[in-house]
């Protein structure tokens, strides 16, 4: 086994041990026994079919927002607008879904509604990319501002023009656009938020990874992420590529709308999906910006979210968000250790 592998194994093991120790200490300080808390987490998640389904349901939008951040990062862009791109996807699903004729069968209605999520997210992301490519506006600023704009806009729309009188949400979407819920196949999952959206989400994440690694477009995206000047000398205009990259990232984030609107809810309302974009950044980092890692990290964060509800009775649910924070710190450190370990041999001019 090579030097690098040994170091990587140690670094990851150490990081996880530290995270566990830190979280246990926090639980103990909050006045509970770690053993009891972990037992509750287990019972609330893996012990029952319903708990597992909820874990997967919580992971569904997270894997998309995580991949949306990762795709942009591999293209050299820090996409902190995932939150807004997801919100745009939710809005589009609600608006388009509600206007589809009720007579349309699912094989027309669902693709149109899903496409609307992606297009809306892509437009929001692409706008930030275009502003960078055309005017040099930094994407961190523009995507953050777009987040704010969309948050205000959707709050107004959901509270006013789009609201169904007497309700606090938008019109129910056409039945053809609804994605089947898991409870349809497994009656034990009654009430769970898990739907077919998870299959589509995993598919989207894997397709995005495949695009990055196996197509010329993906190679160009990564080329600009690696060295924009060198990419330019090869005829890839970094400005235009930035637009494409953020549009792709936005489309992936926007697909999160299908989980909420086309899946569990059937409508949009204020506050749906809020914070999921930002947690996605953590998912991408913990998943080391690769599809496999992101899927696992999304499951971990889904587990923590669901487990947090289970332990709420004895310790604050926030205790488990400590795990999120601690694991981000640990993974960031491990990634640093790893890149240094890899950079050492023959780095530069040997």
């Amino acid at each position, binding site marked *: 086994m090579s030097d690098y592998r040994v170091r990587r194994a140690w670094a990851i093991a150490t990081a996880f041990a530290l995270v566990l120790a830190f979280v246990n200490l926090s639980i103990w300080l909050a006045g509970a026994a770690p053993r009891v808390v972990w037992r509750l987490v287990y019972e609330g998640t893996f012990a029952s079919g319903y708990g597992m389904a909820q874990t997967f349901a919580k992971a569904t939008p997270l894997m998309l927002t995580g991949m949306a951040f990762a795709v942009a990062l591999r293209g050299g862009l820090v996409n902190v607008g995932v939150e807004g791109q997801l919100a745009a996807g939710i809005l589009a699903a609600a608006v388009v879904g509600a206007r589809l004729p009720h007579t349309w069968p699912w094989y027309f209605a669902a693709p149109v509604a899903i496409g609307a999520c992606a297009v809306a997210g892509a437009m929001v992301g692409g706008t930030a990319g275009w502003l960078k490519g055309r005017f040099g506006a930094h994407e961190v600023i523009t995507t953050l501002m777009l987040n704010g704009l969309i948050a205000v806009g959707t709050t107004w729309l959901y509270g006013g023009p789009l609201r169904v009188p007497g309700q606090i949400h938008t019109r129910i979407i056409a039945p053809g656009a609804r994605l089947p819920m898991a409870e349809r196949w497994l009656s034990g999952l009654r009430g769970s938020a898990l739907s077919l959206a998870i299959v589509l989400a995993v598919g989207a994440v894997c397709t995005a990874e495949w695009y990055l690694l196996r197509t010329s477009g993906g190679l160009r995206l*990564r*080329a600009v992420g690696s060295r924009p000047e060198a990419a330019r*000398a090869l005829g*890839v*205009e970094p400005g235009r590529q930035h637009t494409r990259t953020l549009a792709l990232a936005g489309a992936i984030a926007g697909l999160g709308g299908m989980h909420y609107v086309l899946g569990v809810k059937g409508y949009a309302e204020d506050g749906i999906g809020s914070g999921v974009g930002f947690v996605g950044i953590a998912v991408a980092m913990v998943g080391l910006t690769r599809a496999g890692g992101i899927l696992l990290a999304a499951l971990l964060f889904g587990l923590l979210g669901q487990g947090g509800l289970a332990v709420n009775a004895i310790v604050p649910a926030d205790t488990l968000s400590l795990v999120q924070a601690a694991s981000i710190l640990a993974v960031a450190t491990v990634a640093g250790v790893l890149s240094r370990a890899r*950079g050492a041999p*023959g780095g530069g001019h040997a």
Partner: protein
Amino acid sequence: MSTAPRSGSLEIRGLTKSYDGRTVLEDVSLTIERGRVHALVGENGAGKSTLIKIACGLVGADTGEVSVDGRVFPTGVAREASAHGIGVVHQHFMLVEPMSVSDNVVLGHEPRRGPFQWFVDRSEARSRVRRLSEKHGMHVDPDARIETLGVGERQRVELLKVLHRGAEFVLLDEPTAVLSPREIQSLLGTMRALAATGTGVLFVSHKLAEVLAVADEITVLRRGRRVLHSAVADTNADALARAVVGADPPAPAPARSTAIGDDCRLELRRVCARGLRDFDLTLRAGETVGVAGVEGNGQRDLAEVIAGLTSCESGTLVLDGKDVSRWSVLQRRDAGIGFVPEDRETGGLLADLSIAENLALGDPATAGRLRLLSPARIRDRASIAIEKFGVRPPDPWAIVRTLSGGNAQKVLLARELARTLRVLVVAQPTRGVDISASAEIHTALREARDRGVAALLISSDLDELRALCDRVIVLRSGQIAGSLAASDADDERLGPLMVGGA
């Protein structure tokens, strides 16, 4: 401050180091005496940089020891090395660009004043820099900002920084690789001056002429082992070259076998652009035109105008009879213009991607946006290029960042030469590249010429221009100051054209 030169030495004994089971240094010993210049010569990958990293404490040795005046200190601890008076000027400068020269020199060891020593004593810093630069005969303005300085001046700042920290042994990692001939002469003078004041100098270089001109003694490394150690008087260029390469040095280049064609491949007509004024140039099929000049006189702009990275403000660029002045980079590449930029690590290659992916990016077969990249296909194409150009390691999936300068350059050249080219623009193809890789790169360029490619070769290495070119043009202030047949392009004629006047 200055006292009589002390004797004593920095001694490296029996150093061995391996990474991932690959031995990069094996039982290497070397002594740098105060007041002497010791040259360290070897190909890329011979272990020179690793030796320097160990000597200055960046990397720990597996076995062996480093001592100053008989006091052994642990390797791998940078603080120990600098406390023992060892200072390094790395190949890549580590300067804070928006700060002044004197701020950079004293950074980390600032003179202080005021209550609780809270404030940096700027005037003391300035006068320290002035004193140091006078003492060692290196002129730098202490108030100039780093970003306004040229490469040679930046290097002097690095050297001053090391001396300000009290270095008695200065290790210079390939310092001449980035310098123009004039700056090299001045640096060699500085090294002698440092030695005269009792500093021990370790000078790493590929260029045997420089080494023979400045060093007192020479050590040659090959594949991590010391293969030669000799006083400079007891050796010569041939013996050194044999030791470096491990075989007889490459034979002198064969004379060209093909004639220059009549058809005009590329023509610049009164081109004005950033850095160029009313520029006229003609390249014929099979012709290699060299571009000499002091750096920053439009060489880079000329290359970028042809490649399409800088736009023409007026005038026309004609390729094979077609006006291509308004064409995009991609259109020009498709029309057969190849470009090897001088900053291969940032402007040429994608350091985070593999060799195979870098080659695939230049391959017209994968030009479309949604073309699928078959891993088998891009691997096979990369393997062919790796074998043809002798890239080491011969692994298509090796990340370009981990390659040595010479091997990275081979990948870049392979990417451009794999296509059907009409015109090739190459800048500094062998800068920082070792002897055998340079020879291989020259061979590749000659082969391209014999296939009828019209080439523009920008180089600060005048020997390289004479060896490869049919004629040499000299750039000054964005214009052609003179044009010479290669056979007439000696230093006496080129020199005045480069600097102007006389």
